[in-house]
């Protein structure tokens, strides 16, 4: 009898969580305004620390697109607190030990930090992926957005699982 098969090493194309997160990140990029004039020119940089499957999904589907007139550039960053200047910085759930250092590095930058761990918004993340009712959702902190000179669109706020005003 012919049986379908599963693969132990989850391929990026089967990593449903990474696929959904990448799609959210692209939408977040479109629905947030970077107030610093310097951030509205050149490439639109999405940096990824950890999250190998997410990185591959971003490369595969979004790396040739633009945000406004800015071409998207997806960068795989080394596992370090010394991260590049990015518009969006995603830090994977296996890199939690780097988080406090990364928050410190980007403290004065106009960088939207996206994470996926409990209490991330309280620590300084702007957007945090959460599991809610068996799907991937996101929560966001508007005070943290303002600290990084980011203006969040109303749709992004309305459809969030939780918003810290």
């Amino acid at each position, binding site marked *: 009898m012919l049986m*379908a098969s*599963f693969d132990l090493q989850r391929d990026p194309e089967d990593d449903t*969580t990474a696929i*959904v997160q990448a799609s959210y990140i692209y939408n977040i990029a479109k629905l947030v305004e970077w107030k610093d004039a310097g951030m509205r020119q050149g490439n639109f940089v999405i940096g990824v620390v950890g999250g190998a499957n997410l990185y591959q999904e971003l490369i595969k*589907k979004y790396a040739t697109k633009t945000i406004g007139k800015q071409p998207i550039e997806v960068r795989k960053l080394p596992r370090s607190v010394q991260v590049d200047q990015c518009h969006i910085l995603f830090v994977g759930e296996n890199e939690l030990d780097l988080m406090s250092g990364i928050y410190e590095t980007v403290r004065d930058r106009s960088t939207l930090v996206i994470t996926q761990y409990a209490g991330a918004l309280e620590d300084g993340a702007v957007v945090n992926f959460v*599991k809610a009712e068996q799907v991937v959702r996101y929560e966001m902190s508007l005070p943290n957005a303002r600290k990084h000179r980011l203006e969040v669109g109303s749709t992004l706020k309305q459809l969030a699982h939780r918003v810290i005003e």
Partner: protein
Amino acid sequence: MRKGSVIALLFCFGWWGVRAQDPLVEGLRAYQAGDLERARVLVDSAVSIPSHEEDAEAWLLRGFVYKDLYKQRSPDSDPDTLRSRALRSLDRCRALDTERTFAQNAEQAYQFVARSFYNDAAKALQDGREDHAIDQFDRFREAMAGLPEEGDLDQREVDFLNALGTAYTRRYNEDRLDTVVFDKAVSAYERVLQKDTGNYGANYNLATLYYNHGVYNIQQLGVDNDLLSIELIQQVSKELFKRALPYMLKAHQMRPDRKETLLGLEGIYYSLQDDERSEEFRTKFEALPPDNE
């Protein structure tokens, strides 16, 4: 039954020579000579005359003639008419044969013809002609219902439906937008489980079918999806993952050491955002010896 056996049977009744003009005797001679077309004309004629229309032996011969015509048919002939006539004749023989003189021969021939429908159904599935396969299987089931002992009919139906589900799944994998074949695959496996709730293959394949459909929906996310559609697609996929879960759990319960069900559960729970249970099944998988299949 071979031709010699029929001939011997008719000899016993002493027809040979005394009823030389009888179309049944002439038909037997033609059959004996291998002239099946002439035998058919004669035996058709024989069973329509009063002296043979209630004659079990005449109907037996007619059944054999049509069975052999089916076996030796040309590729462009209609096999179903030949088989249908063979079955009706053999059935008529059995009904008239109150002494059960010809019962064994009639039933053997009847089973041969009936099973040819099953074989054709299997071949049609291999050729990707699912509708024809269903038609042939229905004919098989209908024919087998005419036997006093249906034998392994239920098991045959389970095997056929499993193969049908696999054929539809193959089609769906070629075109994931074809939800009609997806529904047909689901229906085939569900029918297996109605007959045999503990069928491992149907449980595993149905779970995989739902799971893969859910994954496929999410894989289609891209630049055209806004926030609302991301949520909607996730909800649809979540329902598919939830449908997959009980079937995969059942398959795992039946064969706890199979790698494929452990990986299936790991994947389903992962997609349902249940990391703890996903990890639990990944750990079980990794604990299996490498040669476990």
